[in-house]
């Protein structure tokens, strides 16, 4: 035991070169090495832009003493002449999990959902863990450190990559010889966030991206409330969050949409996050630039798909092929647009992949200076550690690389990576380049030997005359070991120490008979690199479109003045034959006979029908998430946070004449999230799709879904319709009290959920309520009346016909399916006559879809109300235009063809209620967003581009590039019940 302890302390003492002065020492004398090391005659990159030719770098005790052209070298300096070589600051990665364990996934099997937190004394949500400090679970990983140093890194900032608020990182120098005391440059370096909840925690909330966003917002509101001393109890999460305020705030977003989402949260609270990107920022570069955020960029350029099997190739979407083609240009695009970024190893399989990816980015136009900055000065400055890492200046850590030349050159060798003055030899500088062609004379035979490949791992080929001879060669530490067997003679073994600067390699040869002799390899000609100069080869890039998917537009549609001549015009109130409609500046200017074009483009609409654009009151397209079911109320979440402007279903809806949709939250809980009302402006970004100045809406839901009837979940209130009423009563009562407190001027905890509910009570927000059976419909109206507001819309409302009189009296509208039923118990009494019966009792009725397929032919669904219930055609048409516009309080702007309204219109080939009708043109604000003729051209260009990219990928494979198995990234389609 004693011996073991002794050995251990000896070991520790041995590596503690820089043990603290005040530590006692019992295993020898207390000595210090205060010698200097000087590197002379090197090309020194103090920073990527500050370069000294033939300079000197002087270091001592792990730090840089001086860098410059004329540095006086102290006498007690070990001098190393680096003539012809270069020195760079070692790289820094600020998005790492080095030495920090990522928690393991919690086992959820067979357990019902957990709605409350597990912890006590912390924030109410388990996924918020700002109190976590990576340093507390840190364990230096020398194996990983070696890999990182080989890739050029000297320091990394690591954090626990788990949870929404992830706590602080730690900055570690990758110095195997140092102690933690020396290596850990900062134990609280940066505070990290993400939208991904902890894999180790089971709390249900948040169950969606929008929930994670709402949680982040509420966290900051709560921090403010707590910091002002309004809370009696102790919350260690909020305490930590407050304490970490001064650190760099880093957000792991992970794709271009999430970069924008993270930045918006920051904007709300005056925080500028540094944001982890996804490598797809080039798609939305203007938006990315506008964030002013610094990015952390993964070089996750995808491999080409293996498209040699045409059946498999078919599954790959054009957008994924394009991303393969364009992703390597992402760093260049960001640099060209002045977006500052650092580069991370995150998402690379191995640190050794870095160089190849970097070289690729450079081939695609990234400047070498920018690349170097992204690995040195930028990450250092993001952490506020520029004085210590990322550059070479007096006082900074002696973290630097010695290379054979320009660091991002393909043939450059990284010799040494010094970290805190500790040398790590990656490749010996004394290594001789033995490559070339040689003659070897043995036993009267002449062999030719050609040594090719890389300097550190050359390959040999031996020939006797024209005949190849089997041979084996090993070359390390400048010792050459060559063996070969000649059929006639037996085997030969040669060993030689290579001397630099000589054209002859001389050594010992063991002959087949066991005798030893001297042998010489005499160089006859030098090695010639196969001239495959890839850098001059310009990569072929395909064009972006908006959105960047097949059928995206290369140019965004422009507003036009158009005169539709001779159409059958469905104004909303009447059907006018042979009528003209003039649109001007995005508005409907005139409706009448024989209108004059006055410079407008004339469209002959003879035999065609012109209507207002279709409005879908209940849609779930163009979204990345639908339900936040982690709580029984989620009024704090917003659909506008999760708009997906790249969804193909937007285009397909346009092709069905749809111009406006209400993007609704799902029906997982009684109080859902806030709606987004969108105009389907294909090509715009998420914000550009939002209907400007639209009234505010929220989704409520009743029945089987909110009581979780059809799946195994028994732990959330409510489980019955009785409980549903109590949820509403409770929330509205609290919202009323909240609002009263707020209005009284007393301090109050800002609560997004209560704010939203108070808006309802104050008549500033409308409810669209998912509903099926008459009892619950009646209940909901009574709750509203009790709290002195009115329900706006019942959506689905399949038993609305049973209480249509009560609905009319209450003043609520109904937005229903034309003919759906039988899919669950609560729709047993759903009938296709519902719309007609409700309308007969004076209810404003709309027909909606809740379905990406049905939404693109809502005109036909309106047609069904003529069949079921004998609606007049004008009234039937209103059900997908003017009536939903009324329900959305947008009927003064859209929903009918009336002078002064928005030019959101559809030109149909036939009677718009007919199954035979096709939308030929769909306009929003006078811009043509869908055009049947243009669609034909897009089909051709999609086909052509697919073929082009498939050709390029086949080439990539042929030329030995890496490929991967085709995958089809199928978008998940949502309806109300998608969890």
């Amino acid at each position: 035991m004693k011996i073991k302890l002794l050995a251990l302390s000896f070991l520790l003492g041995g590596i503690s070169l820089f043990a603290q002065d005040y530590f006692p020492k019992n295993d020898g004398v207390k000595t210090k090495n205060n010698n200097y090391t000087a590197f002379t005659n090197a090309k020194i990159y103090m920073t990527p832009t500050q370069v000294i030719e033939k300079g000197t770098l002087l270091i001592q005790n792990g730090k840089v003493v001086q860098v410059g052209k004329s540095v006086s070298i102290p006498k007690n300096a070990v001098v190393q002449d680096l003539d012809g070589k270069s020195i760079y600051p070692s790289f820094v990665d600020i998005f790492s999990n080095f030495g920090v364990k990522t928690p393991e996934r919690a086992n959820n099997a067979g357990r019902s959902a957990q709605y409350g937190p597990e912890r006590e004394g912390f924030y109410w949500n388990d996924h918020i863990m700002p109190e976590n400090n990576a340093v507390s679970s840190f364990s230096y990983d020398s194996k990983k450190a070696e890999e990182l140093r080989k890739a050029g890194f000297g320091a990394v900032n690591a954090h626990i990559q788990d949870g929404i608020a992830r706590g602080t990182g730690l900055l570690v120098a990758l110095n195997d010889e140092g102690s933690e005391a020396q290596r850990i440059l900062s134990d609280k370096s940066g505070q990290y966030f993400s939208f991904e909840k902890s894999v180790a925690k089971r709390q249900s909330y948040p169950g969606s991206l929008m929930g994670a966003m709402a949680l982040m917002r509420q966290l900051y509101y709560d921090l403010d409330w707590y910091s002002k001393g309004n809370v009696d109890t102790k919350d260690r999460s909020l305490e930590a969050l407050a304490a970490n305020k001064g650190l760099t705030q880093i957000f792991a977003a992970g794709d271009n949409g999430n970069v924008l989402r993270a930045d918006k949260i920051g904007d709300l609270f005056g925080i500028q996050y540094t944001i982890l990107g996804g490598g797809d920022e080039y798609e939305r570069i203007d938006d990315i630039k506008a964030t002013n955020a610094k990015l952390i960029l993964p070089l996750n350029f995808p491999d080409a798909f293996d498209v040699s099997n045409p059946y498999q190739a078919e599954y790959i979407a054009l957008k994924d092929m394009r991303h393969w083609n364009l992703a390597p240009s992402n760093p260049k695009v960001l640099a060209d647009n002045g977006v500052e970024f650092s580069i991370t190893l995150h998402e690379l399989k191995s640190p050794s992949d870095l160089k190849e990816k970097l070289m690729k980015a450079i081939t695609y136009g990234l400047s070498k200076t920018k690349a170097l900055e992204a690995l040195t000065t930028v990450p250092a400055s993001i952490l506020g550690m520029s004085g210590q890492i990322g550059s070479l200046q007096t006082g900074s850590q002696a973290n630097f690389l010695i290379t054979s030349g320009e660091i991002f050159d393909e043939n450059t060798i990284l010799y040494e990576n010094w970290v805190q003055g500790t040398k790590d030899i990656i490749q010996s500088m004394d290594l001789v380049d033995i490559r070339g062609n040689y003659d070897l004379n043995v036993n009267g035979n002449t062999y030719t030997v050609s040594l090719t490949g890389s300097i550190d791992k050359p390959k040999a080929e031996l020939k006797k005359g024209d005949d190849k001879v089997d041979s084996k060669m090993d070359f390390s530490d400048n010792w050459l070991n060559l063996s070969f067997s000649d059929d006639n003679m037996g085997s030969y073994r040669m060993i030689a120490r290579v001397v630099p600067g000589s054209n002859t390699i001389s050594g010992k040869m063991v002959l087949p008979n066991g005798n030893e002799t001297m042998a010489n390899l005499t160089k006859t000609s030098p090695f010639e690199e196969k001239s495959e100069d890839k850098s001059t080869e310009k990569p072929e890039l395909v064009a972006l479109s908006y959105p960047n998917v097949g059928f995206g537009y290369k140019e965004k549609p422009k507003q036009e003045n158009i005169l539709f001549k001779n159409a059958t015009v469905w104004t909303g109130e009447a059907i006018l034959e042979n009528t003209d409609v003039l649109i001007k500046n995005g508005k409907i200017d005139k409706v009448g006979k024989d209108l004059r074009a006055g410079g407008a483009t004339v469209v002959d609409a003879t035999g065609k029908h012109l209507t207002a654009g279709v409005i879908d009151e209940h849609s779930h397209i163009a979204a990345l998430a639908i339900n936040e079911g982690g709580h029984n109320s989620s009024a704090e979440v917003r659909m506008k946070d999760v708009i997906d402007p790249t969804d193909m279903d937007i285009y397909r809806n346009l092709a069905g004449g749809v111009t406006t949709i209400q993007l609704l939250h799902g029906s997982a809980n009684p109080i859902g999230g806030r709606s987004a009302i969108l105009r389907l402006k294909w090509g715009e970004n998420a914000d550009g799709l939002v209907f400007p100045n639209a009234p505010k809406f929220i989704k409520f839901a009743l029945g089987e879904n909110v009581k979780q009837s059809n799946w195994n979940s028994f732990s959330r209130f409510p489980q019955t319709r009785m409980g549903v009423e109590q949820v509403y009563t409770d929330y509205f009562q609290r919202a009323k009290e909240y609002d009263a407190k707020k209005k009284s001027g007393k301090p109050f905890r800002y609560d997004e959920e209560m704010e939203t509910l108070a808006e309802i009570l104050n008549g500033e927000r409308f409810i669209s309520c998912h509903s099926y059976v008459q009892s619950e419909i009646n209940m909901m109206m009574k709750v509203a009346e009790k709290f002195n507001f009115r329900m706006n819309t019942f959506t689905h409302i399949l038993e609305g016909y049973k209480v249509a009189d009560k609905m009319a009296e209450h003043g609520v509208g109904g937005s229903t399916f034309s003919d759906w039923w039988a899919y669950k118990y609560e729709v047993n009494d759903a009938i296709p006559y519902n719309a007609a019966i409700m309308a007969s009792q004076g209810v404003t009725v709309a027909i909606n879809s809740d379905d990406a397929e049905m939404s693109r032919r809502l005109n036909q669904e309106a047609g069904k109300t003529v069949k079921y219930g004998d609606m007049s055609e004008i009234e039937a048409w209103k059900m997908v235009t003017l009536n939903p516009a009324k329900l959305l309080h947008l009927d003064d702007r859209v929903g009918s063809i009336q002078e002064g309204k928005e030019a959101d219109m559809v030109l149909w080939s036939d009677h718009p209620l007919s199954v035979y009708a096709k939308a030929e043109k769909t306009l929003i604000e006078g811009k043509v967003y869908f055009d049947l003729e243009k669609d034909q051209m897009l089909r051709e260009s999609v086909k052509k581009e697919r073929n082009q990219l498939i050709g390029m990928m086949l080439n990539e494979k042929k030329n030995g590039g890496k490929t991967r198995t085709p995958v089809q990234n199928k978008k998940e389609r949502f309806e109300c019940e998608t969890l």
Partner: protein
Amino acid sequence: MKFSDINSNNHCPLEGTLGVFLRRLTFLVMLALSFTTSAQQTPAPKQSEQVAIFGATAHIGNGEVIENCTIIFTDGKITAIGSDLMAPTIGTMIDAKGKHVYPGIIAPSKSLGLVEVDAVRATDDQDEIGEMIPHVRSIIAYNAESKVVESMRPNGVLLGQVTPQGGTISGTSSIVQFDAWNWEDAAVKTDDGIHLNWPSFFRRGRWWMGEDTGYIPNKEYTGQVGDIEVFFQNSNAYGKSAEKETNLPFEAMSGLFDGSKHLYIHANGEKEMTDAVATAKKAGVKNVVIVGGYRANKIADFLKENNVPVLVNLTHSLPEYDDDDYDLPYKLPKLLVDAGLLVGLQNEGAANFQTRNLPFYAGQTVGQGLDKETALQLVTGNTAKILGIDDRYGTLEVGKSATLFISEGDALDMRTNKLSKAYIDGRDVSLETHQTELWKRYMGKYEGEGK
């Protein structure tokens, strides 16, 4: 809207107070009736006297249309049809001037009558456990009193192929008519075909096992196809021996080799369909039908050569691939018809209740340039041929079953599909349903309250 307006069959609107009184009386009578009929409409009795429909536009279901047509049927069979017939003097005369007559629409490959409410497990009898279970028969579980089934009739959907779901070989289907007391009564062709769900070349990645979340190549595909081959070979070999221990699955397969049963292969990809047809032919299956056929237009020649008809997916669906034309599902039936294939429409991917929209799925192809009569064939004449019941159903021809309906307008368009009569085997079937009863009951309530 007034109650009287609702009933499209009522062509003598009543006016004044008397009218209101009579309407209310009618309503009360109806209310009383609806109590006695409760869940399901009573099946119609056998045709007892000759029926003649005259003055109609008759859509034959084979591509032809006859204007001002007279259709006569007796004992459930069409005895005469044409525009130049003498008006009969006996039986029921139905004036159908300005109206349209169609053969009863046929719904293939549905689990109608096997499931009542999708989300209620107790009502679900469509999917038995086991991978290769051809011996499992749908007919005996068919609920002739299903409320979903009765809701087919008012739209003209009068026949269906009741089909088990799931597994590789799901079981054996039967063809039924939609107005019956029980399943024996309903059966039109018992045990007509075996349904094989062909494995997919691509499958969804299992993210919990660390795979991609998208669709990835199915590495087990070849093995799965091999299993099917072996099963077919064994079934075939089994049938050749006279003395043997009974093997129920192999026994059930025998009809495929003697041609008495059809093999319905549910497949959508080019590779899957090609492999499937080749496998079935090699195994000696006589009649092969593709159900699905999303990419059938790309191998149309191959299918034609092999004499394989396609029951193509419903038009009211979304493209499977991002880069597909937005209207590919709309026009696919036309592409296949143009390529010379025998094509019918099915909606196996949709909920059962949606099957009443079958005429509109056909109507959708007209917007894509298909002739209306050809579009009608997709749900009548062609389907009957594909299912092997064209000797009796699918077209309006002398000698065939009087399974037909009268619509006020074009039945392929939702705004004009309004049935005034429907006949199955000459029986005058009810067009009332649970749904029309509720409609009338609640309109009656509002009418009764004077609203």
